[in-house]
């Protein structure tokens, strides 16, 4: 799922500097799971912002809400009454949610309260790690189910570089080399011969974000 982290408080306070009444809106989907933008975080952040603004002598009125899924227009439309009653919106959904608000409410400024960081897995409570970059053409069948696009610092497709040392990546001793993990995994599942295959240059341009925002149109659903 999408992972996010709250922005530094000073940065958020700077965004809200010109306003006296705002809506703080979270999202109950991905960002709630990673404890960055759910209902609970809306409450905590609202209290923190109120206190900080009171201390600075410029009171701030904050309405609170939390969308079921802020990436879907019908849920964002439910915010209309509140949005029309404030000067600006602070969204702690992911970057997609912020943009859905911007699109649905063209006259109201919207600010991001979190940094959207990656699509990842929960390693343990409070620890999330990147696992997918949505490259647009999944190669996990070739790599034993571990992704070098997301997990190799150089996005290598033909095996580990010379910097793979004792299972770790050259960039940091505590970062596992995903190619070592792929090698071990392919060995374990009897597919290590895949490491011998030449993987040609990936079609980043046609498959990934590099050709502008991608669109999926499912005609079976749109008609």
């Amino acid at each position, binding site marked *: 799922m999408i992972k996010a982290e709250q922005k530094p408080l000073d940065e958020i306070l700077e965004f809200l500097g010109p306003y006296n009444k705002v809506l703080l809106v979270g999202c109950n989907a991905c960002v709630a799971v990673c404890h960055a933008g759910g209902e609970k975080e809306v409450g905590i952040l609202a209290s923190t912002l109120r206190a900080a603004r009171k201390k600075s002598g410029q009171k701030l009125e904050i309405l609170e809400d939390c969308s079921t899924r802020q990436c879907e227009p019908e849920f964002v439309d439910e915010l209309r009454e509140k949005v029309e009653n404030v000067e600006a919106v602070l969204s702690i959904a992911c970057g997609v949610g912020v943009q859905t608000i911007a699109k649905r409410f063209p006259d109201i400024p919207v600010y991001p309260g979190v940094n959207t960081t990656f699509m990842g897995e929960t390693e343990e409570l409070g620890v999330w790690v990147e696992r997918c970059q949505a490259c647009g053409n999944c190669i996990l069948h070739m790599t034993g189910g571990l992704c070098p696009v997301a997990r190799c*610092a*150089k*996005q*290598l*497709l*033909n*095996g*580990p*570089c*010379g*910097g*793979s*040392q*004792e*299972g770790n990546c*050259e*960039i940091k001793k505590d970062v596992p*080399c995903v190619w*070592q993990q792929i*090698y*071990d995994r392919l060995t374990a599942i009897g597919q290590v011969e895949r*490491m*011998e295959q*030449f*993987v*040609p*240059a990936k079609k*980043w341009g046609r498959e990934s974000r590099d050709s502008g925002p991608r669109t999926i149109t499912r005609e079976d659903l749109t008609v």
Partner: protein
Amino acid sequence: MKSGSNLERILEKRLFAVTAELGPPKGNDIGVVEKKANLLKGYVDAINVTDNQTAIVRMSSIAACSLLVRMGLEPVMQMVTRDRNRIAMQSDIFGASALGIKNMLCLTGDHQSFGNQVDSKNVHDMDSIQLIDCVRTIRDEKTILGGDDEVEGEVKMFIGAAANPFGDPFEFRVVRLAKKVSAGADFIQTQCIYDMNRFKEWMKMVRDRGLHERVHIMAGVTPLKSGGMARYMNNNVSGITIPEEILDRMVKAPKPADEGIKLCLEQIQELKGIEGIHGVHIMAIEWEQRMAEIVERAGLLPRPTA
């Protein structure tokens, strides 16, 4: 002849080749290139020019190579996939060939977090093996990558690649070499060798696959200047391991620099005796002034005029 380069001629004649490395200046000072190049002139068959090594911004490899060509020296242009996409790389390969560069070494490159531009976006549109495939396509099929566009002119490039037998997983290292050879590598320059046992083990795997018959392997060496340098390299340079006995020898030596040269000469002699080693790549990092002495004392002079 694929490129007609001096290095290719020497390797094809099975004469033991010698190459060196030249790091371009951190600016446009041509004098730095000329000074280093003059120290190498007559002692090596070709000179590798690094491409922003350790991700530190320097004069471009292609420009410094061009300066060497003007001086009558033969460069090996290093090209890393870290900083350029396939448009820029293919364009630079055309340009390099037009400037008289006949050898290139295809590398992935050190990660930008090691250098002085840690906030840069790394590109890695291709990896080093895909780059080898790309240059071979341009040279042999006379088309650009994935396209039917014919290359105007002839890009005669002798294609090199690196090999690091000291990276992990060890069993994969020979597989990676095989992939590079199949992609089109004509010659290989290895990471600097200190762990001779592991290197010999790797070379045996190379021979078992018959790769030594398909590619010219040049063994990499770097003379150590001091015990401190040895420890630093062992601890901080990715892909380099220095055995304890060498560290010990360097630390205890009364004249460490001389000991480092002596050790390097011993390594060259040992490497010369390994079946499948066709040359030596001497990386005397910021120590070009000792290169003449190393090559001479290693019995590698005079260099052939192939």
